[in-house]
């Protein structure tokens, strides 16, 4: 079930955020990383696909024409996980994951409970099931948020900077989990991410947006070149693709220095 996007426009108030974003596609079983500078419209693009921001254009997921569906209908087949998972809600981990399921389907309690149980187990959240959300660390909360996503069995899962609040261990753990999830369930995963080394290592495909426009997309080794990085981020960078080690993007300097 491939995700394709064409002629997507989105404005927030009078400000136009996305300009005719076209030619994007993401395949099932793969991780697509969405990269681009701050304020380039990454979050807006993901929210527009989810129906959280109003947009015009064509968004298809397999046979489904998402742009013709309401927010509620889209939420049946896709899920958007925002960057900030902090909450002050007085809910236990189990209640929070069950809630996600209940907002999606009406089903017998036993079915819902066993779905929640499976989601918690797959993210090793069993020992935390009764803990309240506010007592969790950032990494634990992120795992709960992912459990809230997978309990809905989405065909398309979008994550907005899922690793930005995590330490190195948890960054690798979460991305590794997502990649195996994509492969195993055959779902489309799109994640917005700033860390190009993580993107190069875990993504099968990259989308690059800048100033609300689709600049380029392709395999990481096609996209992450010093020339492109200069265009996209206005930086000098060194890129290595060793055969027996993960790719390395080494930023050297910004082309524009503050105060010059």
């Amino acid at each position: 079930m491939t995700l394709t996007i064409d002629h997507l426009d989105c404005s927030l108030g009078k400000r136009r955020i996305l300009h005719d974003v076209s030619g994007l596609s993401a395949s099932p079983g793969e991780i697509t990383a969405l990269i681009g500078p701050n304020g380039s419209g990454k979050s807006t693009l993901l929210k527009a696909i989810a129906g959280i921001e109003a947009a015009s254009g064509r968004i298809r997921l397999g046979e489904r024409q998402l742009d013709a569906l309401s927010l509620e209908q889209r939420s049946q087949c896709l899920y958007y996980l925002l960057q900030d998972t902090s909450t002050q809600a007085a809910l236990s981990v189990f209640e929070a994951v069950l809630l996600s399921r209940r907002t999606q389907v009406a089903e017998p309690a036993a079915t819902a409970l066993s779905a929640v149980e499976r989601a918690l187990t797959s993210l090793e959240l069993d020992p935390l099931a009764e803990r309240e959300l506010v007592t969790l660390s950032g990494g634990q909360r992120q795992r709960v948020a992912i459990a809230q996503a997978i309990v809905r069995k989405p065909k398309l899962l979008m994550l907005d900077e899922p690793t930005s609040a995590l330490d190195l261990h948890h960054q690798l753990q979460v991305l590794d989990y997502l990649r195996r999830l994509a492969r195993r369930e055959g779902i489309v995963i799109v994640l917005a991410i700033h860390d190009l080394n993580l993107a190069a290592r875990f993504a099968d495909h990259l989308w690059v947006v800048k100033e609300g426009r689709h600049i380029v997309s392709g395999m990481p080794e096609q996209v992450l070149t010093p020339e492109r990085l200069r265009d996209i981020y206005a930086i000098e960078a060194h890129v290595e693709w060793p055969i027996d080690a993960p790719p390395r993007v080494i930023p050297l300097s910004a082309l524009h220095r503050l105060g010059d």
Partner: protein
Amino acid sequence: MKATTRLSHTAKPESTAVRYLARQRRQRRLIALAALAVLISLLVDVATGPGAYALPDVLKALVAPSEVSRILEIVVWEIRLPVALMAIIVGASLAVAGAEMQTLLDNPLADPFTLGISSAASFGAALAIVLDFGLLPVAGTLLLTGNAFLLAMFASLAIWALSRLRGVSIQTMVLMGIAIMFFFNALLGILQYVASAESLQQLMFWSLGSLDKASWGKLGLAGLALMITMPAFIRARSQLTALRLGDVQAKAMGIDVGRLRLRMLLCCALLSATAVAFVGTIGFVGLVGPHIARLLVGEDQRVFLPMSALTGALILSLTSILSKTLIPGILLPIGLLTALIGLPFFVSLILRSRRETWR
């Protein structure tokens, strides 16, 4: 994958669902206990008052009115029971309205008072008391009640409508509520300034809150507001709980947050307007009732909603008893006492709880 601890599928012997069901049973037991406490409080409330009737006699009057004296029957059925039930219905209404306002506006301080709904109702009452002016073509005590209700609804609808102009941001709604509170307080101040000493006293008495004008008719109307709004809250229970995860996450779960917020705020408006119109401005219950419920059972609306209703009902019912017994022979205004009875319990819960939510 050297640095990565792989998350794997390992089954735990004790199932999380079993533990969740145990938690749910604990929550339901607490709700049942609260319901029992409300019932006991109701009976004690009916048994308390001038004219020392023993509890067994009062209970007999409740179950078999024909077997007790005509006077006792009238005291119980016409005077005390409507008042005692009104305490429970109004307490529940205020607490439910407060609980949902706090949820909808993501603000621990939201309640009918902080959003200006009570101020609007007070101004409506002042119009009737000071100027003898009615917004509805009715007379007598209904003039005051009608005014208070209409203005409370007006205040809520104003927040609702003004917020629509700039998108439905919760900060906008709270700011509008505070602006409306100041606006009506100013209007009320003008009326108080020009009022005669007698109407000023009457206004003061009304604003302190009182249950003793309760009648079966008013009780029916107050109960009706609760009966109309509760099913709406119950239907939206999962969506309301999801709002606590933040607007964007709720939207990602497929919830039309703007529409939900507007619809549910109308229900809150109806509840608080009715409560304030019938018994005057009774503070604290709408604010603290939900916080106590949250501390006891958490914020899953399946348990939070009934627990809030019961906590509010219990606070006001106990207050009603206290208002009759604190100084024998004198009926104290109930609005004065809600804080006195609720505060010690609330503070002890906060101190005992190590939770870090805004409870």
